């Protein structure tokens, strides 16, 4: 699983990287839209996979909503409540269009974790039976593992896991044979938040559908970095967290394919999700309101929609080229350090802009502490993937992950800080 030497084409070393003029102009203008990064110009923020920084326009959208349109949506007949209702509806339209979905297929939640729990309660609890199988992968985040453990225990179902190849990709041969066992559900991540691997979602969905399995896609690590179109993938359920795509915390999205709407039961009960209420029973609203009980996170949804506009304005071409370049530069810089062990595949095309690694015999926390002293923010720990780390035979790892605001200068600063860490820890250079 560790990066073998000499598998990456030799690209110039980090010391003499020079950003293309065009790219660096866009990066600096892009960076200048992030107030936190402007006010802390020395900070190197390399933890976008955990949460991204927020552009001014998203912050403004939240403030603007509260200053001009705030009221409880769906509940008032007065004009202000209508403007809140409209803002919320417009946010849903933006999300739906971005994902290639219909408005009623989009449910707002707080985050991806809540989204997966929603699918668990609203669909899986009714459809998973004793003796059934739920198919996952060995690279799932705890959020896409623990809910399924609960369902499996409750229902007497079993969990199977698509294993990884030594390179850190899904083993598609085993995936095929596991799918032949006809699982009811395949729940998988689009991009691994540890290995960076990009999974062949379209192919897996086709295979899953031929055996009658439904597919839930966890798009947390892809939605800000590459196009995610629910129709193209053909997935049945999809979740992501708004805070990982430059949006506010408390904004999450669940997509549920229209064909499944008749099979859903509510997740939470109460106000807003009802049609008629009597003393002893009630009838429920249609999708998406069926799954949105209580006053929704309106400002957060509005902020998320603005974040999506921000991403669209930059465009996938630029975002993907920029982040691939950062990733390749960083991979090569890391590879030049003999003490670094990189996790995951070495084929840049199979990888997104995040890289996990370990430094010599040092624990990831120690490395992150030393980098922090140099103003470089990296993640350390198991990244909510304990079983995967166990499988790799390591307790923890360091992880860098990129956003649109990162530059090659950031990578140089990071690699210099890492070299410094080797000195502090007295690792052989």
């Amino acid at each position, binding site marked *: 699983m560790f990066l073998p030497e000499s598998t990456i084409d030799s690209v110039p070393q980090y010391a003499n990287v020079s950003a293309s003029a065009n790219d660096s102009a866009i990066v600096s203008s892009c960076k200048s839209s992030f107030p936190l990064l402007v006010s802390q110009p020395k900070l190197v923020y390399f933890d976008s996979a955990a949460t991204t920084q927020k552009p001014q326009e998203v912050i403004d959208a939240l403030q603007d909503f509260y200053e001009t349109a705030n009221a409880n949506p769906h509940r008032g007949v007065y004009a202000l409540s209508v403007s809140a209702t409209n803002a919320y509806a417009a946010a849903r339209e933006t999300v739906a269009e971005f994902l290639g979905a219909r408005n009623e297929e989009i449910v707002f939640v707080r985050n991806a974790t809540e989204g997966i729990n929603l699918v668990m309660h609203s669909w899986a609890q009714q459809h998973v039976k004793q003796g059934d199988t739920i198919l996952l992968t060995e690279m799932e985040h705890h959020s896409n593992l623990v809910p399924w453990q609960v369902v499996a225990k409750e229902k007497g179902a079993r969990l199977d896991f698509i294993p990884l190849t030594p390179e850190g990709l899904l083993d598609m041969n085993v995936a095929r044979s596991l799918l032949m066992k006809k699982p009811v559900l395949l729940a998988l991540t689009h991009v691994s938040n540890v290995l960076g691997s990009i999974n062949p979602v379209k192919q897996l969905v086709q295979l899953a559908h031929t055996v009658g399995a439904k597919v839930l896609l966890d798009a947390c690590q892809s939605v800000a970095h590459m196009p995610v179109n629910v129709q193209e993938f053909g997935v049945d359920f999809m979740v992501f967290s708004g805070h990982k795509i430059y949006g506010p915390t408390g904004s999450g999205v669940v997509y549920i394919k229209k064909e499944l709407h008749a099979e859903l039961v509510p997740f939470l009960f109460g106000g807003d999700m009802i049609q008629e209420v009597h003393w002893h029973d009630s009838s429920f609203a249609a999708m998406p309101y069926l799954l949105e009980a209580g006053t929704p996170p309106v400002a957060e949804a509005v902020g998320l929609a603005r974040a999506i506009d921000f991403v669209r304005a930059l465009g996938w071409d630029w975002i993907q080229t920029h982040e691939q370049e950062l990733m390749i530069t960083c991979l090569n810089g890391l590879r030049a350090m003999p003490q670094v062990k990189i996790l995951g595949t070495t084929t840049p095309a199979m990888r997104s802009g995040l890289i996990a690694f370990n430094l010599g015999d040092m*624990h990831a*926390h120690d490395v992150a502490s030393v980098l922090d002293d140099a103003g470089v923010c990296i993640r350390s720990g198991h990244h909510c993937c304990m079983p995967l780390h166990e499988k790799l035979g390591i*307790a923890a790892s360091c992880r860098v992950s990129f956003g649109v605001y990162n530059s090659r200068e950031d990578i140089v600063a990071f690699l210099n800080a890492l070299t410094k860490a080797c000195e502090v*820890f007295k690792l052989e250079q």
Partner: protein
Amino acid sequence: MYQEMILDYYRNPRHFGELDSPDVQHREANPLCGDIIEVQMKVKNGAVNQACFQGKGCAISQAAVSMLMEHVQGKPVSEVHAFSKEQMLDLLGIPVSYARLKCALLGFKVMKMCTCKHLGRELGEGFA
């Protein structure tokens, strides 16, 4: 934080290992980082006769528990039980950032659980 001494304790831990038939032992993990520490003690005439630890984790957590094991050797269990967080941090002798306090105090907490078990006491406030 990473003075020579800390790295030395990390790479060459003192009192690392397992006791034959410990009188008391406790094991705990830090779910945030996956660090694990187990402490074992033998008690003779109310004093710590032997103390050792096993586990894996960052330099701070491993060095801290190793120093602690050295420190409690031969001391009365009641005195070890009264040992405070502040004393633990003094013993470690380096400034520990807020984010790393849990690492620095994991072994201390595990040892505290051992003395609690031995003395039949409850763990006091402030141990989340």
